[in-house]
């Protein structure tokens, strides 16, 4: 995936996967990548959105992250609009690893 120009509706967040560990990450208010979606920057401010785009392109070129793209955010809930993106935020609803950890 190349970095998509944002053409979505409403607030936007920028997401990607870490190159090394593969985990899903989002840009936070300092334009650093966070694994914690609750810290992510979600905004309708076009200036910020342009800076997010630039940061994503830069970090993709610097091989920090891969597959950057904007996601639409629901303004009322602050959650991603698309079902799939909600899931990326929540992580697996089931993972055998969780059973092993509680054992």
């Amino acid at each position: 995936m190349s970095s998509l120009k944002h053409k979505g509706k409403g607030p936007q967040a920028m997401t990607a996967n870490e190159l090394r560990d593969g985990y899903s990450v989002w840009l936070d208010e300092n334009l650093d990548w966070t694994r914690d979606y609750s810290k992510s920057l979600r905004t309708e401010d076009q200036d910020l959105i342009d800076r997010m785009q630039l940061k994503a392109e830069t970090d993709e070129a610097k091989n920090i992250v891969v597959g950057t793209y904007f996601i639409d955010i629901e303004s009322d809930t602050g959650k991603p609009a698309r079902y799939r993106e909600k899931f990326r935020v929540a992580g697996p609803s089931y993972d055998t690893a969780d059973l092993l950890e509680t054992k």
Partner: protein
Amino acid sequence: MYRYDEFDAQLVAERTKQFRGQVERRLAGRLSENEFRPLRLMNGLYLQLHAYMLRVAIPYGTLSSEQFRMLAHLAEKYDRGYGHVTTRQNMQYNWPKLPDVPDMLDDLASVQMHAIQTSGNCIRNVTCDPYAGATAEEIEDPRPMAELIRQWSTLHPEFSFLPRKFKIAVTAAEKDRALIKAHDIGIQIVKNDAGEVGYKIIVGGGLGRTPIIGQTLREYLPKSELLAYLTAALRVYNRYGRRDNKYKARIKILVQETGIEAFREQVEAEYATIDISDIAVSDAERERITSYFASPDFEKLDNDPAELTEALGNNNAFSLWAKNNVADHKADGYAIVNISLKPKELAPGDITAEQMRATADLADKYSFGELRTTHQQNLVLPHVKQADLPALFAALEKVGLATDNINLITDIICCPGMDFCALATARSIPISQAIAERFADPERQRLIGEMQIKISGCINACGHHHVGHIGILGLEKAGVEFYQVKLGGDASEDAAIGKVTGPGFSEEELLDGIENIVELYLVRREEGERFLDTYKRIGMAPFKEVLYA
């Protein structure tokens, strides 16, 4: 069992070294993601919804205990303590990290394993009847032929960039446990009228968004001509298969659009141009390969030893398990043991590192160090003495591997779905767990009898829902998951694609709907009928009625 020759060992070692260099260059930024992506995919490494995923090839589903221990080691050292057995008999890890993958491949290479050709538009890992070499139903062990295809197709220069992926499955029994009619090419070992052993070639089967049952390309192919004939078929596909549209690129679409008669003529015409002697495999070479798969030294034993008959009489849990999970072996006094990876608490096909190790030890103790993975996402110990069955059962119970539901309603095939897969439209694992919960009562499961439920999280159909007696497809609309139901699919030698019942259901409705279907079947079934038989006899309408009641 087959051991790599020096050629294979060198190839895998070189490939692993090469990939290590590629990963280093990627991490150092000398390769871009666009350059690296095809390289990592060629080595089985995907980027999924939350993380990387590594798919390890298990050629024809056969593993030694040593190899299985290595898979356990990988799960523990580089992943989160478990692996996932897929419907193509491979093993997937859901959480590897990129810098670790070269080490994982090195570890795999140390036991003659790899992840080559588990992705991409090449000939994928050949799958096989998991009872191969153990069942009396087969004409001969199909694995030497599968191994021959593996050698021929590995890094085959002409067939490394096909229009789309290419999957081959083989069996030597009339009873099909390898789903040969839902593969790009399916091969069945058969005898001709003169009693000579050869191959029946099926072509153009597949699941995915356009499910099609394969058709017969050649009724009988002499043994020595296999690779030449496959070459002809793949050449025709390579030449005419569509490259303009990914969704029409599989050979099944080509065969459908060309028509089987015309397609056969094209293959035969191409075949006529091939100098068979160029690529024919000599009897000596075939014998060499076959010798690696020679049966273990079975002892001369009688069927139904006292240890077994006594235990069958005494121990209820054991006898239930033995009746359901154990199949007949070709050698008297031995049995084929199915180990279910469908306990209620784990996702179908998942197995922990601890369980892998335990199974490897049990394979050493009771099954000549050999085990198998199945496309139903279970395991098989192929050669167990009947007298050892009670002890084996007790050992399996200790590690949570004695679930006695093989082929019953809770032995569900299920893809990772939205919980892990980047392509998913809905979750599948929670559905399978809810069904397993709803039908947990072992007596009721037995009352219902053979019932295959198969669940996919999107139209790619990795969970085989098209051929489930009850097939379930997860979809999503406006942020809500819903599930479409198919009835009457069949994954056996009578392969059939199920029919969609109508509009989809919420999870709750789905569970009640399945319950109603099962109830109706129990009321309407006649002596000896499985669900599928009753469905075939009375048709969709009555089931639809209770499903949408």
